């Protein structure tokens, strides 16, 4: 049972929760988006600085549980230096793999919140390029 408890507060999650990577704002972000998990109120705002199609910097601000906030921090660290193309291929499971801790279905929503915000940003960039009107994107089909 002790193991089960320690598992959630895995060092990796706690590191990111207590000393998050790039938690804050960018001076002039190339794009930004915020979302909320309506069930639990977790909030994440993600700001990206793009150099062409490469993520030069990724920053987040948020409020919520350890998993959602650590997830945002881990994601910011992971995506810097990647291109929009690469991020387009990133799947929900890739995000869960990055978190390393096993999560129950209900907690996966927390772990995927930042990723959902990122996907919305990436799709919006695509549409920007092809001049389509922007629309909201959901990674959880309703």
């Amino acid at each position, binding site marked *: 049972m002790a193991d*089960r*408890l320690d598992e959630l507060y895995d060092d990796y999650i706690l590191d990111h929760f*207590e000393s998050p990577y790039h938690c804050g704002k960018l001076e002039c972000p190339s794009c930004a988006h915020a979302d909320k998990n309506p069930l*639990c109120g977790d909030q994440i705002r993600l700001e990206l600085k793009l150099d062409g199609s490469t993520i030069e910097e990724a920053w987040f601000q948020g*409020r919520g549980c350890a998993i959602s906030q650590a997830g945002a921090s881990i994601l910011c660290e992971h995506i810097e230096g990647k291109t929009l193309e690469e991020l387009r291929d990133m799947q929900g499971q890739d995000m869960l793999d990055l978190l390393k801790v096993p999560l129950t279905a209900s907690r996966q929503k927390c772990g995927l919140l930042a990723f959902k915000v990122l996907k919305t940003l990436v799709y919006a960039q695509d549409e920007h390029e092809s001049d389509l009107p922007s629309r909201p994107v959901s990674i959880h089909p309703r």
Partner: protein
Amino acid sequence: MSVSPTSTGQQPEILDVDRIQQVRRDFPILHELVHGDLPLVYLDSAATSQKPKCVVDKIVEAYEKYNSNVHRGIHALGDRMTTEMESAREKIARFIGASTAEQVIFTSGTTMSVNLVAHGWAAKHLRPGDEILLNEMEHHANFVPWQMAAQASGATLRFLPLTADWQLDLSRLDEFINSRTRLVAVAGMSNVTGTVHDVPRIAAAAHAVGARVFVDAAQSSAHGLTNVQDGNIDFLAFSGHKLLGPTGLGILYGKPEALEEIQPVFGGGHMIREVTKSGSTWADLPARLEAGTAAFVECAGMGAAIDYLESIGMESITRYEHSLLELAHARLSQIPGLTIFGPEVAHKGAIVSMVHEQIHAHDLADLLDRQGVAIRAGHHCTMPLHELFGVAATARASFAFYNTPDEVEKLASAIEKAIEVFQRRSLRRANRSL
């Protein structure tokens, strides 16, 4: 309002530890293990109650022995099923103090019951300038439908302020109830703070200006705190699944003259008197508001649930649950860093919503689940209330009469354990980074 059970006049049985152990044997799920090897400590009855075997058996019996659509076929099975359903209606009427069974409408849940009145009554009868009095503590089910009705009718929503200890500020009732007030919607008991509202006093103020009173009894009904005669309530709603009954079944009670004013929101079979090409006329109550095939098997199950509750005694249940609440408050308030949102125990029912200064409610619920303790974390369908709390989520433990003092202790020690794990981990991390 201080909490006192609706009295039956008889001396209530004292539910001691032995009696509760006996009661627990009636609930098979309470003996399940979770995560493979942990005994279940179920403290989420405010979300849905567990079911005694007699309710499950009744449902199985109905499906195996007399399943048949009600009110239609002229045959033995149909008669039996109809009798079961209608006798459940009578039991429910008696349970809530209604004078006749026709005042009990079957719906699919509290939410549907509120919507029936919001769309079939408020949206049709209210005019611009009319007012609906709500408060920010209400469940979204007793909130959103009134917003919709206000939007449809042009009526205005007003919100009775709350006190610092999370009660309704009844000293300001006169400011908020006036000749324009048409409806006051209020819960019998909050599903977050556990606050038991003084419904008779609110109803008296509403009735004095000719307004109708709608009581969301989703929580209060389960704790024996609901009698429609207290305050001469106009409409009252609750869900079977929170009251040992099956899912998919709700109740709308109404005074006859109040129910008569509801226009059917759903048309279809059973709710009509006559249908012609040029139009239709409606059946009498309760059928008029029960379009389509009812959840008749669930109704039979609900009848068994009421029988079971009455065999224990609602007064005994109310008292026993309150003793668990007192124990929980006393024990939990000793845990450093934990804040409980709600009034003193004298003004509330058996629900404890809390936050810890370091551990997010979600993480707390997760850490408790890992110890077999089932609580809920989130906004519990009360976003406006959590806005006032200043937190997006709280962790909520809710108790039923099948819980034990031992489980209250397990809750408290599981929270202490969670805090210890968090702090130990956090400290280790800090040391590592030195």
